[in-house]
C-alpha cells in the first residue's frame, strides 16, 4: 500500500514540486495551504509523513507542529520542515516543537525523495 505524504505550504508551486517528485515514486501526496488546513488534513487522512513550510498564514509551521504533537491521535507522524539557510534559529525552534528533520530550500527531486525515504521508507 502506498504511503501518504502531506505537504503543507502556502506556495502552490512548492506543493506541486513535491507532489511531482514523490508521486512517480509511488507516494500519495496530499496538499494543504496552511497549518490549519494541514492539521485538518492530518485528522481526515492516514498520513505517514508531513513536509511543512515554516512561514504561512493562519497557522505557521511551528504552530502546526506544536498542535500535532499535543494531539494524542496524531502523535508520532514524522514532520519535516522546509527551511531556507537563513532560518537556522527557526530550524531549532521547529526541532524543539517536535520536527523530525528539515529540508533546505531550494531542493530538487532527489533530495525530497531521499528525505522521504529516509523517514518512512
Amino acid at each position: 500500500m502506498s504511503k501518504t505524504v502531506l505537504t503543507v505550504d502556502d506556495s502552490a508551486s512548492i506543493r506541486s514540486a513535491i507532489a511531482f517528485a514523490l508521486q512517480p515514486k509511488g507516494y500519495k501526496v496530499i496538499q494543504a495551504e496552511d497549518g490549519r488546513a494541514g492539521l485538518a488534513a492530518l485528522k481526515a487522512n492516514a498520513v505517514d509523513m508531513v513536509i511543512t513550510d515554516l512561514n504561512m498564514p493562519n497557522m505557521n509551521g511551528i504552530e502546526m507542529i506544536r498542535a500535532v504533537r499535543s494531539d494524542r491521535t496524531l502523535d508520532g507522524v514524522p514532520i519535516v520542515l522546509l527551511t531556507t539557510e537563513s532560518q537556522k534559529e527557526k530550524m531549532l525552534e521547529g526541532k524543539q516543537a517536535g520536527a523530525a528533520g528539515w529540508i533546505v530550500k531550494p531542493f530538487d527531486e532527489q533530495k525530497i525523495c531521499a528525505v522521504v525515504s529516509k523517514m518512512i521508507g
Partner: protein
Amino acid sequence: MSSPTDTFLQEADDLLAALEEALLELDENPQDAINIANAFRALHTLKGSGNMFGFRALGDFIHHFEDCFEKVRNGSAFVTPDLVAVALASRDHIAALLDLGPDTALTPELAETDRNLLAKLGEITGSDTLSAADRPSEDTASSNQPNAPVIERRWHIRFRPEPGSLGMGVRPDLLLAELSGLGRTMVTPQLDAVPGLDSYDPAECYIAWIIELVGPVDRAAIEDVFLFQMDAELTIEETQLEAQDMPEPAENDAALPDRGAEKTSTPAKGQASGGDSVRVQASRLDDLMNQLGELVIAQARLKAISSEIDDPRLSGTAEEIEALVTGLRDTTLSIRMLPVSMVFGKFRRLVRDLSSDLGKAVALTTEGGETEVDKNIIDALTDPLVHMVRNSIDHGVESADIRAAQGKPETATICLRAEQAGGEVLITVSDDGGGLDTEAIRARAIERKLISSDQSLSAAELHQLIFEPGFSTAETISNVSGRGVGMDAVRGVIDALRGTIDVRSRPGEGTEVTLRLPLTLAIIDGLMVRVDDDHFVIPLAAVEECVDLPDRNMVHDNGRRMLQIRESWVPYIDLDQLFGFGQSGAKGRRVVVVTADGRRIGFAVDDVVGQLQTVIKPLSRFHRSVEGLAGATILGDGSVALILDANAIVRRADAVRQIAA
C-alpha cells in the same frame, strides 16, 4: 496537470498582486503589522519558489529586498512613501525578472535596475545590499557531493536516539536499514535502559544501538544518515579493518519497536475537502464553452428530430439530454464567473501612480467587488476601465486650488462600483470632479466635424460625443490619458461585449459613466417568438410574463400603445412594425412583457413558440451596428434566429417615436 513551473508562474502573479496590495495598504497605514507581514510573506514565498524553479536572479534580488523588509518587520526601519515607491518599483522589477524566464542571465538593463533598486532599498532601510549583478555568480544550487570513497573501511557507531524521538516520527529501523545500505553491518541493540511496563511510555525510545559497519564509506556519508538526529547520542569511530572479522548482515528487525506495520494497515481515507480549488488554463475554459455551445446546438437538433419522429423512447431520452445539458451549462457558466474585484484590484496602483504623476490627491473607493461576471467580460473590461479612470483623474478631477476654491475636499474621490441588475451587470466609474464641460465638447465636436455648428443637442447627446472616434486626439490628451486611443476605444470594447454606456455629469459635481454589460457572453435562456414568418429570441432574463393581446382594451398614448394588464397600463411595441415587416394580420397575437431600462414594456408578437437555450453567436461586422440585436443563434433545423436586445429595442422605439412625433 500543469507543470510545477507553470504553477509557479501563476502563483508568482498572485504573489506579486498580494505584494502590491500590501504595499498600497502600507502606503495608507505605514504601521500596519498585518500588511508588513503580508508583504514579507509574499517576498519570502517568491524567493523560495523562484530559487526552486531556476529563477536565480529573482531569488537573489528578493533575498536582499526581503532583508530590507525584515528590518521593517523587526522595527529597525519604517515604511515611508519613499520606501513604498521603491518597493513598488522593485515589484515591477521582479515581474520583469519573471518574464526573463528561468536559468537566464540578467540583461545589462535589468542588472542596472537591479543595482539601483537594491541601492535605494538599502539606503532607505539602512541595510547593506549587494545586487546579484555585482556578486560573482556562485553556484549555490550545487549539492555537496561526498567524496567518492573507494577503500573499505570499518566503523564503530553508537547511536542512542533522543528519548522523545519516536513521538516525532523518527524511525530507527529506517536509519539502520539505510546504514546497512552503505555496507555490511552488524547491529547490536542495547536494552539496558528499557524500563518496566508500569513506567514504559510507547512514544519514548529507550534503546541504543551499536553498529559495526564495513564498506567503502567515509564519515560524511554516515553523518548524512543521522542528518536529522542532532540531539541523539551519536559516536562514529573508525576501527582497524580485520579481514577475519567480516560482519554478516544482521537480522535486526526483531530488536526494533514496530510502529510501521500498524500505521500502514490503516486504510487511507479519501482526501475529500470541500474548499479545494484547482487552477485551469483560461483557454481550456474557452474550449469547454465552445464545445458546450456546439452540444447545445446539437441537442436542439435532437429535440427537433425527436418531435418529428414522435417516438416516446426517443423523446424521453431527448428530454433527459436536454436536462443534462442545462445542468452542464449552468455549471460551466458558474466556473467562468469571476468577481469584479479582480479588475478593481488593479486600480489602486493606477490611481496611486496617476495621482502622484499629476499632482492631484485622489482616493479610490470600490463597491460591489463581489459581483460576478463572465471571465471573458472581466478580461475585456480592464482596458476600458483603465482608460475611464485615467480620463477621470486627468480631465475630471480639478487641481487642488480649484477644488479648494469651490469648497470641495482636497482629496478627490473616484469610485468604482459594480452591481447586478437582472441579466446585466452595471459597472460605474464616478468622480467628484468638475463634470463634463458641454460647451467645450460642443466646440470640439464642431471642430472635428462630428456635428454641424447649427445642430442643437441635449446635454446627454453631447456627453455621448466623447465616445465618437476622432473626438479625443493626441493634442489634448496628456501623456497620462492616452497613447493614441480615445474614449472611442472604450465604446468599441463595450459594443463588442453587447453593452452600453450611460453618462451622467453635472458641472462642478462630477461625472458618472455606467457600463451596462450582459452577465455572460455565450449561452443564455431565451424565449422564442414568431414575428411574421421569422423567429426571434428574447433573453429570458428580461422577460416578465406573456399575455394575450386583446383586439380591444388598448389605448393610444402619444404614439405609444398601451395594454391593460391587471391593474396597470403597460406600453407595448409592435415588433412587426418596428422591424418594417408591415402590419400583422394574425389573430391571437401575444405580448411578451419585459423589463427594459428599468421599465415594464410589452413586445407584441404573432406567437410565443417556447423556451430554449441559445448559444449566442456574434453577428458579422455587417450587422453589428443594427440596433436591437444582441446576436444570433442556430436553431435545431440549422436555420438562424436573431436574438433581441430588449433595452436597445426600447431605445430604438423611443427614437422612432420621437422622429415620428
